[in-house]
């Protein structure tokens, strides 16, 4: 059985509120953003003056002015996860990384983070954008218990604001930057035992969410929102049917796309607000880092015996789930 021994996060400190977006005068206002997507602030590695003056019309300029790269954020999140797990970087035997905004494509993001951590280990990218938390756990389960090194480091990192067209009234409100990391072991017990995981995709709908390599994020917003709610509800229902989930004790974490969507899901499954962990309200959608970051930010609140139910969806279209038990 796999366990998660420690988790960490890293987010930029620059925050954009809804009034800033309203002041860009692109046809939106603070009230509309709050009502539609429930996000009040989002964090970015871009300087606010750069956004204000250029609206990021050439995303290739974003990396020139950004305060951090995906590698920077991923490395700091990894260091935090290692500290929590109580191990050294040199104890890690393998690194897998998910990044949907890489600044180089060869070598992969995992190789760059390994280099920053100063370790020579097997390092490669395992990638599906937003459902990365479920994919990575499900991917590692394919190895069985004997074919993995003692400690595996997983990272999901993205600077999606570098791909935002701030002249678009919706996209600027959605995205934030951030990274999350988690240490997995098949040989050492950890705070979170992995009971189950799933991952799959429907590539016939892969054009619904796109990030052009040198250009912008774009999506079929309504279709993606409907898919996200329906698919997340299906994932949670399936878990409820297989495990003794008690929403007065157990915790739900969904893809941090927007709070309104998450509330539709929790209302459907009658999950009380106290048992729904999220961070999208003040960080924005951090792609594959959002859900694991939510869990990491609540690490010290985990209670023995609790089930943690993660259901994540995203580009591909792809989706997956994890059921964990706090030991």
């Amino acid at each position, binding site marked *: 059985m796999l366990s998660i021994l420690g988790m960490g996060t890293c987010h930029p400190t620059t925050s954009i509120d809804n009034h800033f977006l309203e002041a860009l005068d692109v046809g939106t206002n603070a009230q509309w953003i709050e009502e539609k997507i429930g996000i009040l602030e989002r964090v970015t590695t871009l300087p606010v003056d750069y956004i204000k003056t250029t609206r990021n019309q050439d995303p290739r300029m974003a990396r020139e002015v950004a305060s951090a790269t995906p590698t920077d954020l991923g490395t700091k999140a990894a260091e935090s996860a290692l500290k929590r797990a109580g191990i050294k970087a040199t104890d890690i035997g393998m690194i897998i990384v998910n990044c949907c905004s*890489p600044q180089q494509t060869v070598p992969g993001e995992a190789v760059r983070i390994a*280099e920053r951590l100063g370790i020579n280990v097997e390092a*490669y990218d395992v*990638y599906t954008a937003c459902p990365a938390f479920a994919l990575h756990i499900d991917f590692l389960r*394919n190895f069985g218990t004997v074919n993995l090194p003692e400690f595996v480091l997983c990272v999901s990192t993205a600077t999606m604001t570098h791909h935002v067209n701030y002249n678009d009234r919706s996209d600027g409100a959605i995205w934030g930057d951030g990274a999350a990391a988690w240490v997995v072991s098949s040989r050492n017990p950890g705070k979170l035992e992995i009971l189950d995981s799933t991952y799959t995709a429907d*590539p*016939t709908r*892969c054009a619904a969410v*796109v990030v052009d390599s040198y250009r912008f994020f774009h999506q079929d917003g309504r279709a993606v929102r409907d898919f996200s709610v329906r698919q997340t509800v299906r994932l949670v229902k399936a878990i409820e049917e297989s495990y003794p989930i008690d929403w007065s004790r157990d915790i739900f974490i969904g893809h941090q796309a927007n709070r309104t969507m998450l509330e539709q899901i929790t209302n459907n499954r009658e999950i009380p607000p106290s048992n729904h962990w999220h961070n999208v309200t003040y960080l924005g959608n951090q792609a594959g880092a959002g859900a694991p970051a939510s869990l990491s930010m609540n690490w010290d609140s985990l209670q023995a015996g609790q089930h943690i139910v993660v259901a994540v969806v995203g580009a591909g279209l792809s989706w997956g789930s994890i059921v964990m038990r706090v030991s």
Partner: protein
Amino acid sequence: MFLLGVTTVSPAAAVSDSELKRLIRGEPSDIAKRVSGVSSRRISLPFDYITATGNSDPLEGWKVATSSPTSLGVQAVRELLAISGISIEQVGLTLGDTGTPYQTCPSEAQRIMGEFGVKSAAFDLVGGIGAVPHALAVVSRWSSERLPEYMMYVSTNTPSQQVNYHEDPSSAGLFGDAAVALLFGKSAGDKGRRIKISYAKFSPEDRRRLPVVAQGSVRLNEDDLLSAEQLSNNISAELESLRSFDSKLVGNAVFIAPQLYAAQAAEILNRCGVAGDRIVSGVNDIGFSIGASHGVALAKVWEKISKERPVVLMHCGDGQRGSVVLMAS
């Protein structure tokens, strides 16, 4: 899992060394010939476009390109299905790899499968310049109970579209475009030959960083390449590991060397007793197609793999060195 088939495709347009001189400005570089042994490269950009612009802006190159990474990958998969006799609906998992994506989201595997209009699990397993041997090493460690009956791996790259031909003669000489598709199965039935991954091991090497493709133009800096001594040490260490696995292997096997270093590695292998007719290049007539190059070479020797004549895929140069042995079962 067994390896049931391999196919590779490249654009039709080939650039010989003499044609290359007309496309670049300034003196040609000898890196492609000396290090990799490239004498011709397949590209997906029109010659007149390169002559006029040098492809200084890859975004403009994409507009006139004859292929994309996705279209090459789709073509490789179609050919793989045709030779394997299975339908796309039977493929339960697709793994993708590209170093030259038009889009960073969704994954290349999802874009390729999207073209076929089927719902199935797909994600990217990105291995850089050692993508194919690395993917084989990963799959060889997976437990078959959790895997579907059939799965595919596709590595597809169009680095020619990110070469600045006027400013970077080294990259212009080195890179070419190709896609490779591999089919894995839990069993072969009577439709295919079974190739077993008999040995797969990767270890850290003494060199980690090889920035080949940035967002923008590709750039190959000679300072980032392994020295001849480092390459020799890596290959010697791999041969030693292979001898420990099977004392007769090095004397019998066909070798697919680290493809970025195909020419230099062939000389080292020769000195270690591997005859030239047992060394296969995936770059000499295609150019270096990043992760697909090992697969281009593998397709050339696929029909010759037997119990007596295994194939060794070697990799090094990006922080990891390793070998995978394919043998008919």
